[in-house]
């Protein structure tokens, strides 16, 4: 199965920002992705790193993963090219396979509600939780199974997957604006994401100011100690 053809499916991708649904206006006139030729990079030029935002853009805080990567993309635009693709999708389960194939490293940005941390907290989820297949109900296909499935089918799957799960307040009400506490936490969340991306995009251009978040506040931020975790 050639990698390029798998990428043909990725219509919500960063390569065409116009194709990305916008939160502010859920029905964008530019919603239709270009049909015909595949605009996604071919296998040979596929960047090593994918930052993938997940969520539902009309379910209040559920959109935070989409918003965060959108800001990241805006921040990366026009800069020295980093080997990074930034995508967003409202899909889940098996559909994620189409996104993950061909990358070495994937950062997933999503909403989470544990009820045990303040809104806006960024949980960095542990790789072993993904690796295990045991005890998982087969109703929805999780990231762990998606990776296992891809590998079993002989597809080039990422060797490292990091999940940034953002604690949210309300992911159940239909709406297009974040709740105030999450909105307030957004700059810090973006700073964290930005740091992580720069850290992973090795080698990054040393002329760039490390830890600076150009997309939201423009403030210099202390680099955060983010551990890298590997998947087997």
């Amino acid at each position, binding site marked *: 199965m050639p990698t390029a053809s*798998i990428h043909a499916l990725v219509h919500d991708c960063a390569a065409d920002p116009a194709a990305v649904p916008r939160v502010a206006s*859920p029905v964008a006139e530019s919603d239709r992705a270009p049909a015909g030729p595949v605009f996604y990079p071919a296998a040979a030029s596929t960047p090593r790193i994918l930052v993938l935002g997940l969520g539902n853009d009309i379910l209040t805080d559920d959109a935070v993963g989409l918003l965060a990567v959108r800001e990241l993309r805006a921040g990366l635009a026009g800069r020295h090219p980093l080997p990074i693709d930034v995508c967003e999708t409202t899909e889940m389960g098996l559909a994620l396979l189409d996104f993950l194939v061909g990358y070495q490293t994937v950062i997933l940005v999503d909403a*989470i509600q544990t*009820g045990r941390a303040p809104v806006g907290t960024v949980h960095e989820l542990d790789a072993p939780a993904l690796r295990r297949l045991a005890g998982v109900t087969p*109703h929805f296909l999780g990231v762990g199974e998606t990776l*296992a499935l891809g590998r079993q089918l002989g597809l080039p799957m990422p060797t490292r997957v990091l999940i940034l*799960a953002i604690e949210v307040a309300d992911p159940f009400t239909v709406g297009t604006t974040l709740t105030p506490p999450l909105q307030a936490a957004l700059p810090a969340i973006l700073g964290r994401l930005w740091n992580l991306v720069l850290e992973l995009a090795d080698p990054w251009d040393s002329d760039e100011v490390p830890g600076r978040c150009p997309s939201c506040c423009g403030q210099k931020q202390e680099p955060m100690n983010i551990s890298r975790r590997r998947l087997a």
Partner: protein
Amino acid sequence: MEQAVKDTFNQGSARANAAYQMGRRRFTVDPITRLEGHGKIDIYLDEKGDVERAYLQVPELRGFEVFSLGRPAEDMPQITSRICGVCPTAHHMASTKCLDDLYQTPPTAPGRKIRELVYNTFMLEDHALHVFVLGGPDFIVGPEAPPAERNIVGVIGKVGLEAGKKVIATRRRLRDLIAYFGGKVVHPVLGLPGGVSKALDPAELPKFKELAKDGVEFAEWTLQVFKDIVLKNSDYVKLITSDAYTHKTCYMGMVDEQNKVNFYDGKLRVVDCDGKEIYKFTAQEYRDFVAEHVEPWSYMKFTFLKPRGWKGFTEGPDTSIYSVAPLARLNASDGMATPKAQAACDEFYKTLGGKPVHHTLANHWARIVEMVQAAETMEKLLNDPEITSQEVRRVPTNVPKEGIGVVEAPRGTLFHHYRTDERGCITMANLIVATANNAARIAMSVERAAKGLIKGGQVTEGLLNKVEMAFRAYDPCLGCATHSLPGHLPLLVKIYDRHRHLLQELRQG
């Protein structure tokens, strides 16, 4: 709806929502999934420690109606398709048909055919996903297999690597067709009142014809896999036909003029538990036949057959509870609309003892019969010369007021109902989703499983799995409210004594 009824309903709904919110604070959730409401089952015991009541809760989507108010009706196919990451095409199509009705502008013949082509492609793809990834592992890998093997990886282990690649590749090609017309799979922008936004370029026709041909072959192959693995195993067949998974209710499904199964358009037909037609109505008449019931102990709405009145969670000849989804569609029709599907349908009823079949787990088989019809319908439409016509849209000129649209979503009948002002801006929006239509029967299935497995306060081993199988056969759309961290379904069972004190908590996932 009468104001008094509406008020009572709203009060009950508000109370239930508040109770749910309170309840949410009490339990903790594995941080890998934040779907804490999903698959939440509450079991209440009586003074003897036997099950008094058990039910499944799914988080309710809130604020949809408020969000829709004042928006142009034409936005609704996009907004509603965003509600759910699982069945966007079903919402998109129901909404589009609602707009046809709202503007009194039926689609042109080619426009309708393109809609049907996209819709049948979606049905085939979505059903295949369920068969192989979601529900199928119970049977293909085996109901007694350890949970670690009951997943897609286990399925591939059983059917073989090449077969696994075939499933993934076919699914991808089907999604390509949907994306061709809809721009994207997940948020299609195809449907317009009076037609569709994109015609089929004749140059693309051969590719899609090939896909339809392969689709028929794929569906037949899936049927064969099911027969070889499931039907040849007498234990599986015994499980399917066991009392634990059998309910004698009414069934609802959409049929064409010959009373054959149709996913996209037709009248809704309801049969009783003996398979006799009791009602047949158009989408516009749905309020005369479908009503919603609220129980004080749940925030869920249970639909029932209005002419019969709410009679509780009962089964038998007088029940007002009906079910939707594949098994119900087969039961409510006089057969399938295409020849190969009809043959598969005949075998289905012959094996399971005639019509109607009341075994919930037979939904898995019925789903594959429907895959065959969806694929054959794709082939038929693509061989229709009109499919490449450019006349895909009729521009609406009427003043809008009220519209109702209905389709058969993979998980069952889906109603969209809007009212607008004279400018076409929404003043009322109501959806009845498939899982709501099935809610009462799902509740009965969950309760039956719980009653069989809890006696005198003692919980039998395997409760979680049996309960899960009971509701998974319906393919309930628990994905509506959220995408979440992808994406396990944690099943949380809470058992309460008669004083509503929590006795025990079981979890899976």
